[in-house]
């Protein structure tokens, strides 16, 4: 991969630049010397065991939920939801 993705592209934020304040925080991490460099996640185990997974079922949204999702849609025309313009090339 020779193509470099800058943070403004990665973040979808125009003209975004790394911040000096935030870089100072990252420098502390760069200079830190952990006793173990491999995050084994030995302590904070939040994963769910396979036996404990919830049922994979489709839950129908309520009528009010569907209505609010439609209301939240940013653009409507003649009863249709309008997506953003897609022009490739």
């Amino acid at each position, binding site marked *: *991969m020779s193509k470099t*993705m800058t*943070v*403004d592209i*990665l*973040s*979808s*934020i*125009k*003209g*975004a*630049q*790394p*911040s000096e*304040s*935030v870089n*100072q*925080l*990252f420098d*502390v*991490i*760069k200079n*830190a010397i*952990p*006793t*173990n*460099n*491999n*995050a*084994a*996640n*030995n*302590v*904070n185990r*939040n994963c*769910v065991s396979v036996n*404990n*997974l*919830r049922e994979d079922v489709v839950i129908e*949204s309520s009528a*009010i*939920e569907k209505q*609010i*999702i439609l*209301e*939240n*849609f*940013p*653009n409507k025309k003649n009863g249709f939801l309008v*997506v*953003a*313009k*897609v*022009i*490739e090339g």
Partner: protein
Amino acid sequence: MDSQIKKIHQQLVSKQITCTALVQEKLDLLKQNTYNSVNSLLDALALELAAKVDAKIANGEEIGLLEGIPFGIKDVYMLQGTYATASSELLKNYKSPYTATAIQKLLDAGAIPLVKENCDSFGHGSSSENTIFGAVKNAIDPTLVAGGSSGGSAVNVAKEYTVFSIGGDTGGSIRQPAGYNHIYGFKPTYGRISRYGLMAYASSTDCVGPLAKSIEDIRIVLNVMSGKDPKDQTSITSNEISEDAIATSSVKTIGYFKNFIESDAIDAQIKSDFLASIEKIKAKGIEVKELDFFKSDILVSTYYTLAMAETASNLSRLDGTNYGNRIEAENLIETYAVTRSENFSEETKRRIVGGNQVLSQGFSDEIYLKGLALRDQISENFSKDFQEVDIILSPVTPSTPPKIGDSLKDPLAMYLSDAYTVGFSLGQLPTLTVPQGTSTGLQITAAKNSDELVLKFANFLKDTI
């Protein structure tokens, strides 16, 4: 202070007050308030629910302890049909399609939601100034910040506009504003309360928790909201905490982090007040141990590295496609970029960019993965400490609340002001702010899942210092 919930419950049951009058009084106070603590009022819903409670009482029916109790909700929670703005431009017209589990449990218990409360946008801040609704003013001195990110919630409780409020705590966002406004604020063990319906900031430390004026009210609300939820697979099963169980303390040994107190950054008064509190605790026959801990800059940097990485991922969905304030541009990619550039605040953008920096190729090993390794070490350190002591006591903040306007000028200073709260978030530990001991309170922390012990020690402290 004694339980406000129990007091109001008695007044309702004995018909000294009606629920409608109570709710109307609180709504009026919220409406007229000048602290910028309100994003939207839920007046129609609240009055409708209050009338139902009054009808029940008039019919001679029994009501539950939380039935008719007015409360506030930080504006990052879903409550079906109400605005959920995250205090952001992007979601200023967004309506919750569903209700968060924690909030639903309170509704099921009969509590009445009054208000969606002002906060830092998406939880990004420690002062409640990063908001489109105006900086929240401190309840004690309105020239100072309320703290954050749950600043509106803390002020509403402190001013008694709400009986309790539900905040969110990722790195101190309940505990610090509680300290700044002299009330109780509890961040439970990670997973004790379902995060379903809480807008995600940093999912591995996000916690739902109550702010209130008494330990008893914290206990009551915590019990109602706790429990495993299939909609949040990181949620855990927990036992109810009874009033009797926390009435007397069995704590024999506590500890505090030496380097927190010996730091150059700590305010001289906070330091001497903290040490005076330690002496009072010793005088009660409790052994106090000085503990070694990571330097504050390591804690803050580890927390912000991981929190920024997580928020960059969590907020990537906010692109104006299905919801939010979409700004159309010449093509889809431009539409995403313009929508996000125009609608996110400077602080939110700073965190998203920081997160993408540490997650990008070349940086992730050197920063993000190292941050994860440091977090492991921090957690291991806590595990060792809790073999030595029952409780860890800390100040909430190194300094007193800054003036409104100062934090936004110096983001690094704001990040460093979280030095005493972020470590416990990384460790996923239960931690309560009590309005005692220093001018911004004290934090009581116990081992994971020992939430009961935290409340027990808080009761002991209430009578000790």
